[in-house]
């Protein structure tokens, strides 16, 4: 399990609080990409760090840098034999954005549950929807949770309840913790505490963490050994990946402590937009804001922002997602609010104040993809 020495070091003052990653941004210092935190840019200094990494062959298992990092293969290692199914939130990444991988790789059915509260799954949601052992059924063998999900934090209490439920019924637990870092920084709960509830955890280093590539699978020795074999099967056996591992470790150490600031800016952005009348669709717990802009045209807003060097995702709908990370500063946030405000005033948009509409908006459409 990963230890949270980073937050400890941060608290001890070993990492300066006002670390500004923007000064390392070589390419376009005045350009802000809020389509996703995968847009975190590679900085020049990263290549010097990569240079100092080990250069051994990871398939032969003798690269010390990479042996500490693994790729996301948790679910496949937990699902041993069909018939079986995975229970997860209907909005989760594994359900919507992984090309049907659960069915394809593991021949597993998916029980996609729409959470009652619209934000996170409760133990009751899980209990009512899990598939029982029966000759007709593909019983639930894994409960997969995601934290953060759409930037929202799943409360620890709920995770613990689901954990107990799973254990009682001999069900395994997987965490898609791509952004668990954000959850941890926001709640103060260590990665270790989260990790203890799960059989496998997947954490991403290429999103808010800012490394160029990569994700880690964490689990028991046996599980990770199996996962390594599966990784080779998937074509993930890469050679001199030490440089990628080294830079990932560096980023974890330097970027994670900046997340509270990113979260503060996100909340500032959300409240700024809300004051203008724009609807915020989900709680703003960490680094994402989901907005609904009717009657303002989303494309119009996106274009106006583009002229000011700010990129947001947009399509024909009125829903979008704004994602912040350590390379987005206060400047950008203020600009967005300013541009939105100017647009609203110029066009004379009037926003309805009724909140009853928000709960049924489908945010899954707000996922970025290839711009054609």
């Amino acid at each position: 399990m990963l230890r949270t020495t980073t937050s400890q070091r941060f608290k001890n003052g070993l990492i300066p609080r006002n670390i500004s990653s923007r000064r390392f941004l070589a390419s376009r210092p005045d350009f802000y990409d809020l389509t996703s935190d995968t847009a975190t840019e590679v900085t020049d200094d990263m290549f010097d760090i990569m240079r100092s990494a080990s250069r051994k062959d990871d398939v032969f298992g003798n690269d010390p840098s990479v042996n500490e990092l693994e790729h996301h293969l948790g679910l496949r290692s937990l699902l041993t034999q069909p018939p079986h199914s995975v229970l997860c939130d209907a909005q989760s990444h594994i359900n919507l954005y992984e090309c049907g991988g659960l069915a394809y790789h593991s021949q597993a059915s998916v029980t996609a549950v729409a959470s009652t509260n619209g934000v996170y799954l409760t133990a009751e949601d899980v209990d009512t929807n899990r598939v029982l052992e029966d000759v007709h059924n593909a019983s639930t063998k894994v409960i997969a949770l995601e934290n953060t999900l759409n930037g929202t934090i799943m409360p620890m209490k709920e995770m613990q309840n689901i954990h107990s439920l799973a254990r009682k019924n001999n069900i395994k637990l997987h965490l898609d913790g791509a952004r668990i870092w954000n959850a941890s920084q926001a709640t103060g709960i260590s990665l270790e505490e989260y990790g203890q509830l799960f059989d496998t955890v997947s954490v991403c280093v290429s999103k808010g963490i800012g490394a160029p590539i990569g994700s880690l699978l964490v689990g028991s020795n046996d599980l990770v050994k199996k996962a390594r074999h599966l990784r080779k099967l998937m074509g993930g056996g890469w050679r001199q990946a030490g440089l990628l591992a080294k830079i990932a470790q560096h980023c974890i150490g330097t970027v994670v402590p900046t997340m509270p600031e990113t979260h503060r800016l996100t909340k500032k952005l959300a409240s700024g937009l809300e004051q203008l009348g724009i609807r915020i669709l989900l709680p703003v717990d960490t680094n994402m804001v989901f907005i609904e802009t009717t009657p303002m045209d989303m494309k119009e807003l996106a274009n106006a922002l583009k002229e000011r060097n700010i990129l947001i995702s947009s399509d024909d709908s009125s829903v979008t997602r704004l994602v912040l990370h350590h390379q987005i500063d206060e400047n950008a946030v203020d600009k967005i609010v300013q541009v939105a405000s100017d647009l609203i005033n110029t066009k004379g948009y009037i926003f309805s104040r009724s909140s009853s509409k928000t709960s049924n908006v489908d945010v899954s459409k707000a996922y970025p993809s290839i711009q054609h």
Partner: protein
Amino acid sequence: MTFTGKTLMRLTTLRMMPVRRSFSTTGASRLYIQNNLNNDQTHPSLQADPNAKVYDFRSDTVTAPTDEMFDVMKAASRGDDVFQEDRSVKELEEYMANLCGHEAALFCASGTMTNQLGLRTHLSNPPHSVVCDARSHVFLWEAGGIAFHSRASVSPVICRNGIHVTADEIEGNLIEADIHTAPTRVVSLENTLSGLVMPIDEIRKISELARSRGLAMHLDGARLWNAHIQSGVPMHEYGAQFDSMSLCLSKGVGAPVGSILVGDHTFIDRARHLRKLFGGGWRQVGPLAAVAKHCIENVVPTMPETHKLAKYLSDQLTSMGIQLQVPVHTNMVLIDTASVGLDVQEDLIPTLLRKNIVIGGQRNKSRIVLHHQVDRKGVDTLIEGVREAITARRAAEPEQQQQQQVAASLY
């Protein structure tokens, strides 16, 4: 001919005749699959001295990044490849597509990925099967990928000449459509295979055959670079025979990570989607693409030297009495040490590790692989080590013979 003449001729012939045959003809060598699988490469118990320079002859995948490469990486673009927004990746993919005479290319994390994606994209409708050489990487070393990813059966062909499969052999192993069968859908070749170059004429024959039957042609060209350098056949000429090719960048070419799949636009679009499914969609990978292109341009031209060095090594080893499993065409020397009484794990590996040389293999068989970061000194040290091991074994033999005599007398 005069008596003197005949004597002279006989003497000359005797001098010219090798002391031992150069190619092992034991029945076991034909079952190449069996021996190849016993190629343990991990040596958990013995390690070379990590502080001194280590020569690793187990594979050309061990080519390590140089300091200079990090400067190349720094200068690359840093866009997101999942959204197809990275310039350096596009440059590499276009370069490779043009080089191979294909429409498009896809940069992936490994040769296993490009091979399996290539095959998977051809194999859309089970029941279906793939025909290939029984020694193929796609069949033996990709963790059962063909069955797993594509639900396809495999018809592995044991080639009679020990070098490459022929069009006749492929034809003889094609499975026709029938209610009982998984008909052949893809012919998958490998070039080089165990360092052996497959002749372009044979490839052309097989390609013609396949196309006349409506079958797809895929090439595992992980080391096609070596074949191209050795044969002089242009890359696009190879490319014309196949619907898809997989070429590796992290082996002899020397890049840290990566492999390329080439094919037409529709094919590559589909492969890209499948790549995401496999978990192969990577983000800011421009640096890896840029350094791969750099390596192609700078390292591939050094391959003739590497091939010469491999030839030199094999000549030295055979002169000691060691046999070759197969001829040396490019950068690999596959040895059989039965004739000199050496067990690779027991005798050869420990001796070589003491000299900071790492090789793989089991029982009497080992595969020695050279690449551009192996110099003459390394090769000479290896040769020295082998000589020492042989001497040590010969010294131990009288003892053993005595023991055997004692045992025999007891019986």
